């Protein structure tokens, strides 16, 4: 079985999730007694691809074309389609980035396949990988396997594998040049931008009190602000709160907001969808207050109170004040 990990770069910078997926690919390959290869798409990326020469990979493919300079789903799918035709890999693994979410379903469909997206782990059964993924926002896990012929496709969730476990080795770069015509690209991407300079740097806060959907109404946020004030911490939120406009986007923690790792992260009424967890699970001490004992936030919490936040938070404020 041949395995290729498709790494992601933008403007010559690696997306660091790629190295987590590289570690996953090496692990799966090792269990199958083979060595994984790596591929990267772009323009002028041979040197960048060369940075992988110190990793344990069979081969590094630099998929090189000027029309791959800026990402478009059409160019990426054309290039990868031709790459698959030429090298016939059996299993292609991708980091589950926003970009991969954009093109991988299209690529798999063009090969009459279904990609297993957002994988959190795997095990081997009878020489085939069984992939684990989450359902219902992390409340339930599922075992999924591929049915039918190669190639198979899967994308790995952020944090599921550890980048520092990527194994060192020696390899060489092979350049592959797909043929892509400008007329085949139907979308015109423009430059990346950020909305505004962030006024709040949550990354610098020692204590963060974060509020989620459980708060029910905008007016109730004052209660959580009071707790943040009592602790001398910053107020943050999960995505739905910022979507609703109850707090500004710059206070959002998670994959589309800020990634934080404070000394204390106190999650109030946050169930812990993976998009939120990836933004805060590196915090030193995590506290969760939630009415649902099965909420995924308790997966990462060191301390927890299962209960009604409207009863617990006022008592917590009082207890913090007493302790001062």
């Amino acid at each position, binding site marked *: 079985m041949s395995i290729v990990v498709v790494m992601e770069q933008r403007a010559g910078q690696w997306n660091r999730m790629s190295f987590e997926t590289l570690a996953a690919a090496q692990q799966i390959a090792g269990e199958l007694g083979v060595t994984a290869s790596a591929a990267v798409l772009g323009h002028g990326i041979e040197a960048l691809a060369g940075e992988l020469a110190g990793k344990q990979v069979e081969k590094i493919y630099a998929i090189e074309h000027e029309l791959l300079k800026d990402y478009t*789903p059409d160019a990426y799918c054309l290039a990868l389609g031709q790459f698959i035709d030429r090298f016939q890999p059996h299993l292609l693994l991708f980091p589950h980035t926003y970009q991969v979410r954009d093109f991988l379903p299209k690529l798999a469909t063009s090969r009459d396949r279904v990609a297993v997206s957002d994988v959190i782990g795997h095990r081997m059964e009878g020489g085939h990988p069984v992939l684990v993924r989450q359902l*219902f926002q992390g409340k339930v896990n599922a075992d999924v396997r591929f049915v039918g012929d190669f190639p198979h496709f899967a994308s790995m969730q952020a944090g599921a594998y550890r980048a520092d476990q990527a194994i060192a080795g020696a390899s060489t770069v092979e350049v592959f040049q797909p043929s892509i015509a400008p007329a085949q690209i139907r979308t015109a991407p423009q430059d*990346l931008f950020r909305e505004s300079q962030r006024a709040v740097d949550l990354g610098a806060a020692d204590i963060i009190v974060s509020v989620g959907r459980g708060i029910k109404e905008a007016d109730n946020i004052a209660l959580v602000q009071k707790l943040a004030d009592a602790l001398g911490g910053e107020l943050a939120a999960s995505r739905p709160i910022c979507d609703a406009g109850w707090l500004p986007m710059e206070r959002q923690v998670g994959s589309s907001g800020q*990634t934080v790792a404070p000394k*204390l992260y106190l999650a109030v009424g946050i169930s812990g969808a993976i998009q939120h967890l990836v933004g805060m699970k590196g915090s030193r001490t995590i506290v969760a207050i939630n009415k649902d004992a099965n909420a995924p936030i308790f997966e990462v919490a060191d301390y927890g109170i299962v209960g009604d936040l409207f009863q617990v938070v006022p008592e917590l404020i009082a207890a913090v004040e007493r302790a001062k």
Partner: protein
Amino acid sequence: MKIVVAIKQVPARDSQLPISPSGKWIDDADLTYEINEPDAYALEAGLQLKEQHGGEVVALCAGPARAAQTIREALAKGADRAIHIEEDMAAFDPLAAAKLLAAAVKSESADLILTGLQSDDLGYGQTGPILAELLGMPHATIIMQVEKSAAGIRVKRELEDGWFQHVEMALPALLTIQSGFSKLRYATLMGIKKAKTKEVKKLTAESLGVVSGTARIAMDRIYLPERTKRTQLFDGTPKEAAAKLVEKLRFEARVI
């Protein structure tokens, strides 16, 4: 602009989800259902585009008979008509499901197809781009804004870590909409009343001539995740629990 919005009915957000004895799916006998939240934003985007540029919004939904409720709600919010592919979708993987939607939507010749970026139940996040590929349309995912442009449309894509990007493309096209696209509207009383008279076209996989075909992936088993971390839980009254927590934070974790 003719807009089709693909919506899905999923278990309500706070549902307790008992695993069924077969271990293949949840026991859904006592569940309540609602529109998949990102799809609610896709519907909102569609309704706003219609208000700005005129045209028609068609709600498209594949699901068993109970999905009729979610379709009615979409009509009450302002969709002009609906297509209900009445099927129990459990046997369909994302490609098979998208083939059903593609077959139903082909004859509509829509300018724009919208759907949520992912479902809150299966969460593959693939239906949109698969559908675009099956229909031969360009697409863009995780969209926060849509405006008309000379070429067709100009959309704002959300990327990781607070970055965004504008992308332009010609119509017809398919977009997956991110939650928070805009504030969601409520159905008005008038809307609810009108919904009863709106057309709901009923189709099935058979009437569409789509066979679910060979599955490409198989979900063998679902189960509750194993706790890998031991969380110290504090019980008692809220006051007692809060006091214990503060004590631990001060003297064990030493973070306050």
